[in-house]
Each structure stands twice: as structure tokens, then as C-alpha cells.
């Protein structure tokens, strides 16, 4: 066979599947698919539990459902925190600006807040210190988010790498400041004002509720901003097509910088919460939910109320599996991480089948020996 003939034959080769966007799937069916995915993942988890850690799967399931409810407030706060991170990345992602730097942006916010708490409390009245903590956190996070945004807007640098690297800059900054502030040499700062509680945010109901409340307000704000404001529309349009946005007269640079300032603002609020309400200290492990948050935002299709639900489910599962590891004395959280990973994997796979319609092509039908009649039925319903 000559080369020319081969070239001619190539385009004839038909793929086995035809994948098309599916917008018509009813909501209940989508939920059913997702529930089935979670269930399948849990069954696999049980099986792995028997094979890998040699525990009774019923014991594992019981622990997963018991753990999160032992302390419901911790679960709520963890949900709020994860949701806060997700809300912070959502406007940027909607614009197809891949902000991988939420961890760093929150961390510098927390660092700035702790600096205020450490050096200003005592010298200034408590209410003023708290205001300054919030202001400093927000300012630091906004600056940290704007640096890669400005480079993106003016020099079209790759924001994924830039924001990712900024996380390490943040960790370096925190490590250095702990080195400067901590005189004991242990490499830890300890809780700032452990006994005086100076500069700590006041407890409303308890120490967890303020974070939950603030993130709830952030969720409402973000929903309104993304769906009903001109800014939100512009952001989405830049994400769909930069050229279209430019054509209708949108200043793309301005939108990028404005949106990332908003991201920074959200991160700053989270940083202030970490400093004043949750941690009262800073180290490289503080926060750290920025990557899971991206997954949450994506799974929820960037819809804030759905993100709240997904955050809750993720934290429920994390807390449950970690409790299972603790109460069954597995000696590490590896099994918990594997479980959460499996569930994520299954749910994402189900998302594919919810968002897209997969059909066999003529060739596929032949290869898999599917009768013509079935495909006609499918064609009729589509």
C-alpha cells in the first residue's frame, strides 16, 4: 500500500463514541447520578477497608457517620472555612483566571493580622486593634492577589504558575517572621495573647459562630455579585471570550485587576478570621484549603449556594474518615485521604456523564455489536 492511499484512508476512520453537550438532563436525574457515584465510591472504600487496613467495613461506615456529629460546630466552621476559600477563587475562575494562590493570599492576610495583634494590643484599645487586624489582613491579601493580576493584565504572564509560586513566597514570609518573632528557637509562635485574649475577635454564641456568620454573608454577597451585577456579568464575559468582551467595549485589564482585588478582599477576610477568631497564631500550616476549594468551586459549577452544599459534604467526609482512622487506630490518615480521593474521583466521573451525552457512533455500534433498534430509540428521545 502506498503512502498516498494511507493518507486518503485516515479521515474515513470514525471514532467509537460521539460526545455532545447535554443541557436537558433533569435535575433529579443529575442528583441521582451523583448519589449513585458517592454510593459506589463508599462501597469501594469498604472493600479497600477490608483489603488494605483489615477492618470490618461496617465499623468503618459507622465511624464515618459518627465522627462529624461528635462536635457539630467544628464541622460547621471547617465547612465555612472551605467555602470561604472557594468563594475567594470563584470570581477569578469564572473569568478563566486560574488563581492557584488562595492559600498564600489567606496566609499573608493572617500574618498581617497576627502582626497587629502581637504588637498593637495593649498599646491601643481592643476594638481599634480588631479593626486594624481586619484592615491589615485585607490590605495584605489584596496586594498579594494584585501582584500576579497586574502582571497578567499588562504583560500576559501565566497566572497559574505565578499564583502558585506566590504560595511559596507567602510560606517563606511566614517562616521568616516566625523566626524573627519567636525567641525560644522552637520554630513555633504559640498562641498570641493566650491568657489575655487581647485583640481576639469576640465570641458570638461561641468561637465558631463568627466565622460561620461571616462566610454566610460572603456567600450571599458573592451570589448577588456574580448573578445580578454588571461587574459580575463583565467578569463572566471576559471568561467566555476576551475578544468579545473587548468588542463590546469592556476594559479587560480593568476587569482582571478589579476581580482579583475582590478575590484578595475575600482572602483578606478569611485571613482576618484565622488571625482573630480561629487560630490566634500563624504558621505555614494555617489555612491550606485553597486547592480543595478549587475542586469545590468546579464541582458546584461556580454557584455559591451549591458550593456551600459541596463544602459541607467534603468536610463531612473528611471529618468522618479521619475519625474512622483515629477510632480504629490506623496509625495514619492515608486511608482517609484515599477514601476522600475515591469519592471525588467518582463524583467527577459522574459529572462528565451529567454534563455530556455519550452516544455510540455507527462504527461504535458495529464494534460493540449494538443492534440498530436500540440506537433508534435513543435518537428518538434525544
Amino acid at each position, binding site marked *: 500500500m502506498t503512502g498516498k492511499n494511507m493518507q486518503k484512508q485516515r479521515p474515513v476512520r470514525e471514532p467509537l463514541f460521539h460526545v455532545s453537550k447535554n443541557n436537558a438532563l433533569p435535575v433529579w436525574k443529575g442528583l441521582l447520578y451523583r448519589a449513585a457515584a458517592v454510593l459506589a465510591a463508599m462501597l469501594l472504600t469498604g472493600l479497600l477497608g477490608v483489603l488494605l487496613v483489615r477492618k470490618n467495613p461496617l465499623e468503618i461506615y459507622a465511624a464515618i457517620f459518627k465522627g462529624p*456529629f461528635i462536635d457539630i460546630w467544628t464541622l460547621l466552621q471547617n465547612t465555612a472555612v472551605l467555602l470561604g476559600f472557594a468563594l475567594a477563587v470563584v470570581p477569578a475562575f469564572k473569568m478563566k483566571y486560574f488563581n492557584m494562590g488562595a492559600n498564600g493570599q489567606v496566609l499573608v492576610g493572617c500574618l498581617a493580622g497576627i502582626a497587629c495583634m502581637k504588637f498593637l494590643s495593649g498599646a491601643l484599645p481592643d476594638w481599634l486593634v480588631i479593626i486594624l487586624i481586619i484592615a491589615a489582613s485585607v490590605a495584605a491579601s489584596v496586594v498579594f492577589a494584585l501582584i500576579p493580576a497586574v502582571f497578567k493584565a499588562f504583560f500576559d504572564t501565566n497566572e497559574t504558575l505565578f499564583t502558585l509560586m506566590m504560595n511559596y513566597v507567602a510560606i517563606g514570609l511566614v517562616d521568616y517572621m*516566625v523566626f524573627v518573632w519567636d*525567641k*525560644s528557637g522552637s*520554630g*513555633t509562635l504559640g*498562641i498570641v495573647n493566650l491568657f489575655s485574649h487581647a485583640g481576639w475577635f469576640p465570641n458570638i454564641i461561641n468561637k465558631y459562630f463568627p466565622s460561620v456568620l461571616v462566610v454566610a454573608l460572603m456567600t450571599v454577597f458573592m451570589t448577588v455579585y456574580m448573578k445580578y451585577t454588571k461587574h459580575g456579568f463583565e467578569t463572566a464575559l471576559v471568561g467566555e471570550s476576551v475578544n468579545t468582551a473587548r468588542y463590546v467595549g469592556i476594559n479587560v485589564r480593568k476587569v482582571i485587576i478589579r476581580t482579583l482585588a475582590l478575590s484578595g478582599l475575600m482572602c483578606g477576610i478569611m485571613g482576618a478570621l484565622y488571625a482573630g477568631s480561629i487560630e490566634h497564631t500563624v504558621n505555614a500550616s494555617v489555612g491550606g484549603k485553597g486547592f480543595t476549594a478549587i475542586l469545590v468551586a468546579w464541582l458546584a459549577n461556580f454557584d455559591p449556594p451549591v458550593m456551600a452544599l459541596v463544602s459541607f459534604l467534603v468536610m463531612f467526609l473528611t471529618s468522618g474518615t479521619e475519625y474512622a482512622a*483515629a477510632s480504629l487506630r490506623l*496509625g495514619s490518615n492515608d486511608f482517609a485521604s484515599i477514601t476522600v480521593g475515591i469519592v471525588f474521583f467518582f463524583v467527577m466521573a459522574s459529572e462528565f456523564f451529567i454534563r455530556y451525552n455519550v452516544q455510540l457512533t455507527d462504527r461504535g455500534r458495529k464494534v460493540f455489536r449494538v443492534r440498530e433498534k436500540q440506537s433508534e430509540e435513543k435518537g428518538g428521545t434525544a
Partner: protein
Amino acid sequence: MKKILSAILVVCMILSLALSVVSCSTSKTITKENIKIGLITLHDDSSTYDKNFIESMKRALQDLGIKEEQLVLSTSIEETSQCYDTAKQMVKDGCDVIFADSFGHEAFLLQAAQEFPKVKFCHATGTMAHTAKLDNFSNAFAAIYEGRYLAGIAAGMKLKEMIDSGKITAEQAIVGYVGAYTYAEVMSGYTSFFLGVRSVVPSATMKVRFTGSWYDTDTEYSAAKALIETDKCVLISQHADSYGAPNACEEAKVPNISYNGSTESQGPNTYIVSSKIDWAPYFKYMINCTIEGKVIDKDWTGTIDTGSVVLLDLSKNAAAGTQEAIDSAKAALKAGTLHVFDTSKFTVGGQTLTTYKADVDTDDKYTPDTEAIKDGYFHESEYRSAPYFNIKIDGISIIGDEKY
């Protein structure tokens, strides 16, 4: 199929509900049969440091006849509010005594102790219990500098063998040390180790590199490699928790003295011995106090006598006569005729130390507050359980940055 699945799920949920109802029953008399113990560790059982705590706890439970099911073991708990949240969850889950193993956990555990006065909280390596004055919060450590000293003798014997066989000269007896931070616990450790080495080989010197992390396989590996290749060290020891340094030693065929557990599996041809703290004696004490309703000592220091400071069995790589040398030093330490930080055995800037104020009571500014030199030696681990020897003595040089 679907029916079976949903049935399983329903059973699980009912079971979990029943379990949570059972665990809600309050105000129990603590007995051996119903005591519940919480253990919080920074990493998991892949870290030699944390593995040591986990295994000691399991052994203590076995010795006391307590079922392993009575232990809740939370691993990979960060030094953040996660520690507080975990402790709180353990309290609500019915734990009567909770132990955390990392220095940075202390403030968060203290926070939980303030909130739950009926539950006992114990913490390894911490410094705040004797000043915080809470009846339910205690620190514990061991006089591990004595174990390090004995391990140093094993290292000295190995160096002596190398000198005697003409492999190195007396001046080339340079010991390398991979340390985590420039922190009293580490400094006390390498200094006592070095004094042990020098009790056998007086010409020995030491070079220390800090990693700035308690657990970082890559950094520990490259620090050990640099000590061997650049600094010409002929024997390595470490105070860092991964297998990084032992692996580097095995590759370069350089003898290694380990800490917190045997690393013989990682270095079958180079591992000599390891000193370690056996936490089982403390865990037994802590659990017995909880059952008997007694207050746990604010600052508990384990010793060779309590069985807390141990040296593991020598490997085949140790020099001949090592066991005898260790045994006689051990007897002298026990009898009180030998002191590790004997001021006549080391100098600082060429001078013998006669006075040194150590920072024993933790305050914001870390002001030295307690005279530690008395009767010709530095009294380590006597005024509080966590080490406070942080003097830079002659013969030990720090390469690169100090890490805080």
C-alpha cells in the same frame, strides 16, 4: 441491588445514632475497663518520632491490660487550632486523658485544658505546665541527654576503631550532626552526644547543619550528604525524624547513630545504635493516675532508672568493646559519679563555665531566670522536664545558617 444498598446505608445510620447516644452517658467512675485515652501525633507512623509514641502507647496499654479499642489515635494533627479541635472532639468522644506529642501542640492543648477541667491533658516536650498551674495540664520529657551520651560512646568507639586501623587520623575524627532547629532540645542532644564521643576520642570535633524542620526527608538527606562530602565527616548522627540522614549514610557507607528508633532496615551496613525515649513508663504513670483520680506531676522527667531513657541493642556494625564501655558509663551515670555536662569536660570560648542562667520559666521575652550550674556540672532536665541546655561549646561548629 439498590434495595440492599439502601438497607446497608440505613443500618449504618441507625448504628451511628445508637453509638452516639451510648457515648453521651456522662459522669462515670473511671476504671481500667472503661478508661478512654486520646493520643494526638503531629505526623503518622511513617515518622520515627511519632511511631515511637504510638508503639510505646500500645505497649503501655498491653502491660496494663487495657484493650487497644480504648485508645483513640489521631495522626497528622497540625500545630494549629486543629489540635484544639481534635482534643475537643476526643473529650466529647469520652476520652479521660489526652496526650499530644509535638512542641507546637502545647498552646492549643492548654486552651482545651482550660475549657475541660475534668479531663487530663498531657504534653511531651512542652514548657508551660509548671507556670500555667492548671491541675489537669502536665508536661513530660526524659533525661535523654544521658542516652545521647551513651550513644556518643558507641560513636567514639567506632571512631577509635577507625583511627586504630589507620583508616583516619586522630584529627580526621570529625562527627557530623543533622539538627532540626537551633533549639535547646537539639543543642542539648548534640552536645551530650559529642561529650560522649570525646570521652573516648579526645581529638574528635563536630560539625552541625540545621534543616529548619522536624521532618523533611530531602533536606535531611542533603544535609547529611553535605556533611559527608563537603565537611569530611566520618560518622553521622541526627536529631530529625525522617529516614533522610540514615539513607545518605548507607549510600556513602558512613556509620550512623540514630535517634528515637532503630533505622537498621534503612542502613543495614551503617547503622550502629539508637538512643530513644521509651514513653511507655510515662504512659503507664499517666493512665494509672487517671484511674486513681490523682493529679499528674506537672513536670515528669523520665530517667534511665524509670526505663524511659534507653539505648537499643548494638548492631553488628558497632566496634568491639562498645557494650562494655557503655555499661560502665551507664552504671556511673546511675550512681551519680558521672555527669554528662561536667564543666571540667568542656570549655566555652576557652574558659571553663562557672555560672549560667538558663531560661526555665517561659515568658514572652525568654529571659534567663534559673542558675543551672552547681556542684561542677550543668543541671539539665532538673528544674523542668524539657531540656534547657543551649550553650555553644568549643569543638562544635555550626555550618550554614542557624535555624529557629
